[in-house]
């Protein structure tokens, strides 16, 4: 076993939301007066979980693990699970509230692409400046300068101010600098979520190269399970600041995916009084039923998904239709599918709609249902009633960058090779 290069021991980080310093001198003086001089309670902040549960946030709680030389660690978890905070503490950007991190060797962290870039300066000047900020020496940058420029592919524009670059060029140059860092320990936060597909491929290639060169240790945060499984050998799954599972990457990723799937993709109500809706209609049940290819498999892009719902209709002879609208996690509408209209009597109305497999791209989605009367009047908008994640599935494709596009349909697509006389000669 190789030597431990990072030892993380009982690490905790507390954020007091909006209350370290109330932001104005007057309030802080007042606070100082009441707490220090009059020995009373802080008028602006009580670290008492019963009265002010929203003011304190444990971004990390009792996180401990050891990283050995040459290991590549994937850190996974939902948004807000503490992944980035963990990287920031290890990178010395923020102090932990409790606990210790000890380490051996030099550390470089890349929490953002293009840190320290100055739009007004040229590409050449930015390579040096951003290299210095990331901890490279002048000699080191000089030595790698040509390599960095070649990697970014912007030779022609190297003496142009980067504010005139396209966003793609900007990102390529920024990543190129970072990719040529040679620390003992490299810390990466979701850097692959940028750039075009071609460039992402290059970045992943470069990362693999770096991780396989002797003794390089990498800590890597990503939402792409595919990338984590393929690049990392160890994994940590963080859940609300706590370590959920730790160990071999396959085990950790599988547990995480199985858990993500456990989100009961269903909401139901016994009585109309509690149910979401209004005087015209109230929902009784909404459910997402995946048609899994095998039991306990995670939802992936191949899985057909059926949305089932029931609602109480309180109006006699209503001409009703429903729109099922799918949004990406970022709030972009992917599609808006209307049902057929139907004249409904008072009582329960049920419906279902199937989103075929091999149609959506991987990612997080949510569904809203809009109930419409007479094809024009909106009766009730049930926003974000279902949410789900689709995992990636690539089969034999050995490329791990983020797949482009809002959808990823599988259309008939054939390659042929017409044999011509000329070629045969």
């Amino acid at each position: 076993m190789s030597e431990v290069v990072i030892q993380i021991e009982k690490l905790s980080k507390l954020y007091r939301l909006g209350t370290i310093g109330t932001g104005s001198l007057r309030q802080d003086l007042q606070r100082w007066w009441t707490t220090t001089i009059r020995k009373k309670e802080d008028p602006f902040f009580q670290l008492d979980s019963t009265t002010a549960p929203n003011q304190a946030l444990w971004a990390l709680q009792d996180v401990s693990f050891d990283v050995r030389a040459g290991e590549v660690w994937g850190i996974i978890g939902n948004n807000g699970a503490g992944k980035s905070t963990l990287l920031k503490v290890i990178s010395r950007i923020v102090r932990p509230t409790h606990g210790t991190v000890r380490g051996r060797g030099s550390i470089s962290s890349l929490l953002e692409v293009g840190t320290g870039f100055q739009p007004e300066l040229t590409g050449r000047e930015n390579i040096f400046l951003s290299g210095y900020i990331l901890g490279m020496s002048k000699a080191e940058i000089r030595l790698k300068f040509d390599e960095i420029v070649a990697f970014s592919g912007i030779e022609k524009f190297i003496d142009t101010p980067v504010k005139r670059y396209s966003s793609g060029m900007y990102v390529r140059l920024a990543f190129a600098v970072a990719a040529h860092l040679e620390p003992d320990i490299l810390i990466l936060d979701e850097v692959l979520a940028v750039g075009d597909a071609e460039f992402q491929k290059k970045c992943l290639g470069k990362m693999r190269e770096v991780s396989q060169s002797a003794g390089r240790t990498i800590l890597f945060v990503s939402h792409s399970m595919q990338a984590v499984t393929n690049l990392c050998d160890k994994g940590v799954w963080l859940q609300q600041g706590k370590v959920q599972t730790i160990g071999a990457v396959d085990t950790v990723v599988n547990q995480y995916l199985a858990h993500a799937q456990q989100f009961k993709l269903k909401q139901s109500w016994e009585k109309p009084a509690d149910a979401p809706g209004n005087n015209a209609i109230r929902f009784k049940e909404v459910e997402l039923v995946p048609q899994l290819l095998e039991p306990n498999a995670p939802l992936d892009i191949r899985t057909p998904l059926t949305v089932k719902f029931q609602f109480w209709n309180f109006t006699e002879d209503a001409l009703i239709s429903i729109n099922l609208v799918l949004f990406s996690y970022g709030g972009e509408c992917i599609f808006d599918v209307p049902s057929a209209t139907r004249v409904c009597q008072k009582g329960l109305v049920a419906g279902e709609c199937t989103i075929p497999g091999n149609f959506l791209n991987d990612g997080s989605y949510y569904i809203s249902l809009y109930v419409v009367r007479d094809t024009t009047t909106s009766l009730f908008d049930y926003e974000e009633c279902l949410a789900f994640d689709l995992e990636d599935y690539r089969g034999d494709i050995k490329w791990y960058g983020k797949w482009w596009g809002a959808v990823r349909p599988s259309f008939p697509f054939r390659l042929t090779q017409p044999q011509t006389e000329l070629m045969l000669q």
Partner: protein
Amino acid sequence: MALSTDRKWDWEIKAQTSWWGSSPQELWSYRHLLIGLVRRDFLLGYQQTILGPLWVLLQPITTMLTYVLVFGKVIGISTGQVPVVLFYLAGVVLWNLFNDSFTGTSSTFRDNAHLFNKVYFPRLIMPFAQLSGFLISFVIQFLFLLLVWAYYLLFTSWHGPSISWLLAIPFAVILLGMQSLGLGLLFSVLTGKYRDVKFVVGLGVRLLMFLTPVIYPVQYVAAKWRWVVELNPLTPLFELFRWALLGQGTVTPGQLLYSTLFTLTLLVAALLIFNKQGDKLIDVA
């Protein structure tokens, strides 16, 4: 390779913030960053200006001309034996160094919050880079001042002090630089924490100028009020600077000692507070 676990750790991150901050070796290893930042500030400062770096000289010249007109001609403050132009130019050049370095470094945390939140390097590099940049501007302005000084010496009837007195100038400049850095570091913590303070800085530095012998010589301050001006630790430095360059200034060794002790205490305290509070401020930024 020995795999013993007793090899010492290279670094350790704990909850307690240190008063001492980065080691000198660590700061030294980031010297290229400092040079890069000075270069950046210089390039950015004069980007898309027609006169470019000429502004380094134009700014003090125009200020000096205004002072000569307003305080010299209109109000008629006496500058003693010293030519009016030399008197004001010397004051303006030295005051600029203090003013720029203090206001520049005092917004360290506010201006760099984004950077500090994404990457680690010794935070002190930022104010050091600011101070270095302003020192370079000062040297250029000072060389210009020497040219004007030489002109008056050679082509007018004015008799300057002996050349050897000039040796006192670096002392005054270094102390002034340290004082502005000390104040700047202290206020950078305050402006990082309290948004109100940035207004105080702008107002305070303008008021401070009138308590400093920039536009008047101490010898002409009414005896009744002189103690106010002499309480200001900047005063002996300005008087020493003018005395060395122009042969006129009211400064005693006691005042210099007071200013030196004040500067050193301020700088050490400011460095400690900057190091201690710096990490906490990142959480707020």
